[in-house]
């Protein structure tokens, strides 16, 4: 700063003023040029007059700019130019530009006081703010406005950096300000508590006065709290800071003119006590010849009520708006961001769609045309089917058979062919079917199939089957059923006591049935039947026959293949059902078998192609990795 200090009241005045703004004392006469105003020294980052938005200081911008340009070292000019360039071109990575380099170099200094790195962070903050807001021209214009007014403080702060650095490290002066600075003032600064303040890390005044910079710092550190001073930016600066400043230095050492400039005591003007050796001799008036006294200039004689010195923290509307914007941005950070909606057209969806088309179209075509191209499965090639058929064929006429409908409705598409064939065979054999189930859907499935099967048959359904219903308790229930069926299921679903009439009145335990046929898609249910019921059946050689889904076959087949066999017959899945139906002379005339065949063929191709693509992509990726 090149403001002129009033020799009378010690207040800073713009260089173009003839007399003091506050006490009307002549300024030019004394030619007293302060290197920087104490307020600036007290906290280098306090937004100087340029940022306060006060009208008279707005007008002084050009002059300031010119004097500033002299004061700015080259690297800082580059920084400023860079920053403006950056904000105009909305560079995404401020960390890579010259500003950041400078900031890094500053931050890396071992004894860098806060005041020196804050502006750097401020730059980051601004840059990130511009990025975050993503304003194109608007951001550019904003940065231009900043360079012309509100933002000036940032650059000012930047400009103070080398200065403070030099002071801290007692390097030879490099700026114009330094050149202009008289020796006494250098000494004064050396003993000044305010400079000490500046060197103190994160001292309270810094924290309080460098509002925008602080905000920037907070952005940099990712903290979510907006500093208190922003909230009560209209109120006075809290006294503790000043007390703290005082407590650090003995008041006696503080020059009184400097004392006078302290914000909270600025209202009582005191005579300057500075060394007046450099002051001019009065050339006019009664005090002619005296050095450093107030010349009897008419304007100086006029008594004035000392003006109150505003100590309000001065934040422009724009700065306030910017901080609010930052606050909003930080608030957004706290909210969990919802996952972006999945695009409707993604590679996965396309792949899935392709699979659907490739899989379903041929199947549909086979069914529509009723194709009979593929040779039907031979019962001999499918283990279990021949034994199953023989066991059913060898059942005595009218024998009681226990049927367990233990499959889920969803698997009826796969198992219905086999099951309806079994039911038809049992009806032909005039067997009496006692139906039980351990799955809730069982009774409905059984009833539906029985009703479909008995169409065209004469006689009441109850003459050849009864539905005993659901066995609660899973495995325990099965154990109970094996020991005493009539205790577990005392009544049929119609509410009849079927155990009292023929043929079930002859049944005391499960082995009294001629055969037990379990229909299930669940290997666990099949295992329960095999492990809980099969031992009892083996005593009298009652066969346990299983109709199952292809998903359970691999786990049930070992029981069928075992020696001695625990399962005497096995029909598994659609293939087994088709083979079984063909053995008993029921040949299907629709295209489901061809559809099944082409479905499997297409599925194999899809899995193969998918896997090959995966391997190729992996190899390509590995190749690229090796290249890199």
């Amino acid at each position, binding site marked *: 700063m090149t403001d002129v200090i009033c020799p009378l009241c010690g207040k800073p005045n713009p260089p173009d003023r003839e007399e003091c703004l506050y006490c009307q004392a002549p300024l030019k006469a004394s030619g007293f040029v302060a290197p920087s105003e104490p307020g600036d020294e007290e906290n280098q980052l306090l937004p100087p007059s340029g940022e306060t938005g006060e009208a008279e200081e707005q007008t002084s911008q050009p002059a300031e700019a010119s004097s500033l340009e002299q004061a700015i070292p080259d690297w800082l000019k580059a920084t400023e130019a860079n920053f403006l360039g950056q904000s105009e071109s909305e560079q995404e990575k401020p960390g890579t530009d010259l500003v950041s380099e400078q900031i890094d170099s500053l931050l890396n200094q071992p004894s860098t006081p806060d005041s020196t790195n804050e502006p750097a962070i401020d730059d980051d903050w601004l840059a990130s703010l511009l990025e975050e807001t993503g304003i194109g021209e608007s951001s550019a214009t904003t940065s231009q406005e900043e360079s012309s007014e509100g933002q000036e403080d940032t650059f000012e702060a930047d400009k103070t950096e080398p200065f403070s650095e030099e002071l801290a490290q007692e390097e030879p002066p490099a700026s114009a300000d330094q050149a202009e600075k008289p020796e006494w003032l250098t000494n004064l600064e050396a003993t000044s508590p305010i400079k000490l303040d500046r060197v103190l890390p994160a001292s309270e005044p810094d924290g309080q006065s460098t509002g925008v910079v602080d905000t920037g710092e907070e952005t940099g550190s990712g903290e979510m709290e907006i500093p208190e001073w922003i909230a009560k930016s209209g109120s006075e600066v809290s006294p503790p800071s000043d007390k703290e400043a005082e407590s650090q230095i003995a008041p006696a050492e503080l020059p009184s003119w400097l004392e006078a400039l302290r914000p909270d005591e600025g209202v009582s003007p005191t005579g300057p006590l500075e060394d007046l050796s450099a002051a001019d001799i009065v050339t006019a008036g009664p005090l002619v010849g005296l050095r450093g006294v107030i010349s009897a200039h008419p304007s100086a004689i006029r008594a004035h009520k000392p003006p109150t010195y505003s100590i309000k923290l001065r934040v422009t509307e724009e700065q306030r708006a910017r901080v609010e914007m930052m606050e909003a941005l930080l608030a957004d950070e706290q909210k969990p961001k919802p996952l972006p909606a999945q695009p409707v057209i993604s590679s996965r969806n396309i792949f899935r769609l392709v699979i659907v088309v490739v899989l379903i179209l041929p199947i549909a075509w086979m069914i529509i045309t009723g194709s009979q191209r593929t040779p039907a499965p031979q019962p001999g090639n499918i283990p279990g089917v021949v034994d199953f058929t023989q066991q059913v064929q060898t059942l005595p006429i009218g024998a009681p058979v226990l049927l367990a409908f233990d499959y889920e409705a969803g698997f009826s598409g796969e198992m219905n062919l086999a099951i309806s064939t079994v039911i038809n065979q049992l009806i032909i054999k005039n067997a009496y079917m006692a139906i039980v189930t351990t799955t809730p859907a069982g009774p409905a499935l059984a009833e539906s199939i029985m009703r479909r099967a008995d169409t065209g048959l004469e006689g009441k359904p109850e003459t050849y089957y009864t539905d005993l219903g659901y066995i609660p308790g899973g495995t325990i229930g099965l154990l109970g059923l094996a020991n005493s069926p009539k205790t577990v299921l005392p009544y049929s679903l*119609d509410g009849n006591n079927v155990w009292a009439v023929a043929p079930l009145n002859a049944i005391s335990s499960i082995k009294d049935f001629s055969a037990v046929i379990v229909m299930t898609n669940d290997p666990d249910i099949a295992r329960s039947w095999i492990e809980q019921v099969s031992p009892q059946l083996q005593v009298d050689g009652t066969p346990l026959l299983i109709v199952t889904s292809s998903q359970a076959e691999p786990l049930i087949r070992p029981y069928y293949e075992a020696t001695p066999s625990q399962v005497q017959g096995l029909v598994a899945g659609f293939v087994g059902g088709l083979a079984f139906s063909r053995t008993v002379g029921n040949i299907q005339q629709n295209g489901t078998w061809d559809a099944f*065949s082409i479905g499997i063929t297409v599925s194999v191709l899809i899995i193969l192609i998918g896997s090959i693509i995966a391997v190729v992509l992996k190899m390509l990726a590995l190749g690229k990795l090796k290249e890199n």
Partner: protein
Amino acid sequence: MKKILPIANAIIAVISGLFVLLGYFFPKVFGGIQSVLIGWAIILAAFALLLGIFNLAMVHWKKIGAEGPSNINSIVLLISLIITMIVVSFSGPTGSWSLWIFNTFQLPVEISLIAVLAVILVYAGARLLSRRPKWYTGLFLVTVLIVLIGSVPLFFIGEIAPLNALRGWLAQVPAVAGARGLLLGVALGTVATGLRILMGVDRPYGG
């Protein structure tokens, strides 16, 4: 009371469990009490089902109050649940109207869901190697392909006898070995889990 209740619960669980367990291994001595306790458990499971249905209804009743399309689904579910329960109660589980509801609403949807499963599985199979590019994934896929090709005569190609035989061997020998090992492992885990409950260490009933 707040301290006594959890301990009492644990004691109840341990004692009832011990009697049932002993009933399995010494049926002559503890068989009677075991069957009584299991009989209670079966009837209690039915009461628990009532609570479950109540819970299902409450969850969707709450959703009806909520905004958005889910409340429509909840209304539909509740209507469907209530109508089905009323119809099946009056018509009986094997009555004509019960069967109509079963064959119209339950059967098609359930089979369709498994049909959807087919597409999901083939899609997963095709993506598996890119998802988990490991040697055992490759072995898994090779096995799947062999079993699929060995199960059905391929369209245009017909039956591939060697693969058919290989499929049979895979299902008979290595698959049985693996399944047996898995079943035994699961059984050991199950025993450990049950014992922790009978020791009162795990208390899923709370307390």
